């Protein structure tokens, strides 16, 4: 009896060591075997230029056929700050940050949430998604939602399936009347997005979580200073 118990314990320990070794090995493997991306798309939202006209979110809804009641892109308004006639609002963009280190991709049980290795764009495979909503809970930016038509998780994909396919810029970038949005490849030092990022100090939100978001923001000069 004690012999068989010892045998079992040995076997269980060997299995545990094997399983954890395999997990570590595959974790390292996926980290090391990353294909060299062709490009890495990023977006800059210049809050000093944004006037909160919502042309971007309306264009997004039309191009990507986003149903009523949900949205891939919202402009949040804070304010007014100051007294008439020197009143200011502050406009911030709420949409997918296309993290380099993606919490949603890590937790997705079926691999429906994935980062496109060629472009760095975080996307959803509608067919593979079962709607467990783990990605929605895992996103620290809380921008994912269930599309009421497809019943799959949905979010901004930099118009990957619509405008980018046709070789055009994302709908929001084209629609912006004040040129507050700049889209491009941050691995290309000549690209417009790199020029804009070098010309003014920018910030990103929740960087302490280590997600390395690729939605850069140039801070609006108006607005309050919060502690």
């Amino acid at each position: 009896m004690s012999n068989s118990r010892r045998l079992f314990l040995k076997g269980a320990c060997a299995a545990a060591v094997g399983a954890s070794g395999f997990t570590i090995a595959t974790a390292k493997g996926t980290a090391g075997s990353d294909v060299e991306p062709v490009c890495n798309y990023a977006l800059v939202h210049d809050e000093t230029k944004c006037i909160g006209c919502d042309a971007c979110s309306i264009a997004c809804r039309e191009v990507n056929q986003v149903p009523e009641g949900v949205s891939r892109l919202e402009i949040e308004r804070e304010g007014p700050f100051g007294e008439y006639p020197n009143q200011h609002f502050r406009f911030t963009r709420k949409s997918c940050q296309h993290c380099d280190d993606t919490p949603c991709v890590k937790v997705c049980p079926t691999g429906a949430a994935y980062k496109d290795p060629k472009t760095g764009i975080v996307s959803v495979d509608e067919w593979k998604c079962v709607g467990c909503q783990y990605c929605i809970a895992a996103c620290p930016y809380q921008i994912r939602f269930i599309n009421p038509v497809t019943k799959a998780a949905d979010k901004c994909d930099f118009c990957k399936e619509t405008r980018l396919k046709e070789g055009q810029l994302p709908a929001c970038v084209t629609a912006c009347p004040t040129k507050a949005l700049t889209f491009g490849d941050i691995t290309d030092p000549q690209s417009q997005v790199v020029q804009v990022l070098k010309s003014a100090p920018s910030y990103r939100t929740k960087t302490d979580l280590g997600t390395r978001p690729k939605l850069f923001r140039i801070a609006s000069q108006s607005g309050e200073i919060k502690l």
Partner: protein
Amino acid sequence: MSPFHFDSLTWPWPIAIYLFLAGISAGAICFAVLLKHFKLGRDAYKSGFVQAACLIAPLAVFAGLGILVIDLTKPFDFWKILVFYNPTSVMSVGVAVLMVYQVALFAWLACVFKEPALSWCNGRWPVVEKLFSAIAKHEASITGFLVILALSLGAYTGFLLSALTTYPMLNNPVLPLLFLVSGLSSGAAGTLLGGVLLKGNPDGKEVHFIHNIEIPMILVEIVLIFTFFTGLILTGGQSQVAAFAAIGEGFWGWIFWAGIVVVGLSMPLAFNLFMKASSKRKFSYVAITASCSLIGVLLLRNFILYTGQMTVA
């Protein structure tokens, strides 16, 4: 902001019930194994308490999985979770554990109920007889793996939530341990309540055995809850905000202090301490103590799930 509806809420109460059922299944089967191994031996199947645990374990896990599937936005696509696996996803790993757990569970049930099952068959189906004896040959290994899988399942329910960096209260290393221990205590309570309902002797050796384990388990649970919230408060920032939002004033604060601390932990602990292991037990005593524990664990699951999602990092 109402206690059941707020912007950052993604997973509502059905998930809490699933977490509860997975925990009670893992806990009940652990106690069935303990009872058989240390107290009852070959006659385990005759005990109402073992019967109750062996009914609770599979039924709870099926009901939990059923709730989980219904809660998907695409319930008919649930098979994709079984086909596609992502090793970095806690949910994916958990689904794999759940599947293997069910196999081990039924193999062990076959070992325990081999005698009554074979006498019921009465030699009519020789295949069944062969199958049962083939499984029973490996009972020691099956029991060991079942306990490991049950403990993994109990901890998994906590890891599922602690993987979410979005919510500072859930993203907490104590949570899997807390869920494991409270799951085990709900399994003990379920076994006791089911056992006395199935005409088990409320003063039997099974009850005394489980009650002896229950006191240290409740104490560990209290220490873990204390560590959980102290850790959050000492971390500061949004973790501290989340902790005070949870156990401070308001609906969920009441649930925590009155429901979890008083009804779920203090009352069963007090009953167990006042009723010494040597004294005689009655049906009502066992049933009330077990019900308090079950209510406490169910409230704990809901409390952690809802308050955890209230504060975003």
